[in-house]
């Protein structure tokens, strides 16, 4: 057997986040988003100190692996690294939740309601944004 295929190289397989398929995980992600103080900078997704997460703009990519490395590695201009601070499965839950904020997940998986302040529509009722690349805001 050989790994060499005839013709042009195929598209790389997209990375699947198992939490994208589980309503429990997206809801846990939503809880952790507040408890780990992501909302301290990103607010309820509208952004403030950090960039908004509920819009269609993605500075470092909209795929699960991009968001995962944003959380674990950190990013320039303020995003800290949570390496070893957040267990892997919880990072996956956060990744799924972040994607649900701009309607990237199925409606039956996205969180259905807000626990406290009703600052925005629930993720389930959020329209799906079409992701596009964006550069970081000027400092």
């Amino acid at each position, binding site marked *: 057997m050989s790994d060499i295929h005839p013709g042009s190289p195929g598209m790389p397989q997209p990375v699947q986040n198992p939490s994208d398929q589980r309503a429990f995980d997206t809801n846990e992600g939503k809880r952790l988003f507040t*408890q*780990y103080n992501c909302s301290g900078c990103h607010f309820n997704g509208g952004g403030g100190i950090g960039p908004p997460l509920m819009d269609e703009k993605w500075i470092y990519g909209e795929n699960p692996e991009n968001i995962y490395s944003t959380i674990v590695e950190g990013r320039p201009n303020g995003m800290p690294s949570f390496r*070893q*601070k*957040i*267990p892997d*499965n*919880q990072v996956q839950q956060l990744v799924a939740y972040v994607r649900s904020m701009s309607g990237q997940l199925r409606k039956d998986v996205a969180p259905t309601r807000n*626990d406290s302040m009703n600052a925005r529509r629930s993720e389930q009722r959020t329209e799906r944004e079409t992701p596009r690349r964006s550069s970081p805001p000027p400092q």
Partner: protein
Amino acid sequence: MIETRNTTLKICAALSFVLCCTSCGGIHNALNPTGPQAQNLSRLWWLFFIVCSVVFVLVMIALLLSLRNRTGEPQVATAPVIEPPAEQERKRRNVVISAVTITVIILFVFLIASYSAGRSMTAELEHKNGLNIELTGHQWWWEVRYDDVDASNIFTTANEIHIPVGVPVTFSLKAADVIHSFWVPNLAGKKDLIPGKINTIWLQADKPGVYRGQCAEYCGLQHARMALWIVAEPQEQFNAWRQNQTQTSVTPASDSQKRGQQVFLTSTCVMCHAINGTPAGSNIGPNLTHVASRNMIAAATVVNTREHLAQWIIDSQQYKPGNKMPQNNLSDADLQSLVEYLQSLK
């Protein structure tokens, strides 16, 4: 066949005897009241129990007598009685009227007893300023915050509430996620902890001792393992305990403990737990500033020993499946140091 039945009967008798014995004492028992609140409730319970038992027995006796004094077979095909005998009719009417009167009187006695017990349990709430404790229910543990006019005396602990004997203690009840209920049967009745609302209850322990409390409102997977201890102790002992709790955590003494502290501050622990006197200041999980001074961990689920603590850190899910603490992959050496550090936090 008969022999097995006899054995079963004997076992049943022995079992009910044992159950009766345990119901008279115990640290989780409403029939063993050790405070004014619980005494109120238990008095009410015995009143209802005795009166209702007597009424039940009397009704059964009346029923049996009337069955025994039946006057032969009912006559079906005879002509209907147009006028019942006046004497008999008067007797029967008197019986019914007196029975109804007695029933109404008993119900009124119950009403008054229940109302006055309820009043005496809540009426003095404003005047009971002995000690103020803010109790917050979490899935599945209790956050305990001791209020004080002096801000430096305010401290937070978890799952183990020390109170002085003979002093009324007021609890402000809150909830962080879902509805819980605070229930220490030996000291007081139940009161719900409701998100977005503050409920108040006061209680007082008349005898020193340890009393068990339990969440009494179904709150999710580990509702059954959401317990707490109330430790009632003499005032001097309580003051000493309180004095210790207001201090920041001890600085690690040995190298191993220092390493344990570093493990704590650089791993997942620091995301949820606080240890006063270190940079760890999160309030999602129980405050661990004086974790070694508590007798139990995990909301009175297991005894606070070295083994339990280590197993809880590595895989808390084996004790309380579904609880919010994640599994942690620590190396053996790191875990040993971490446990040593936590055990030094007296």
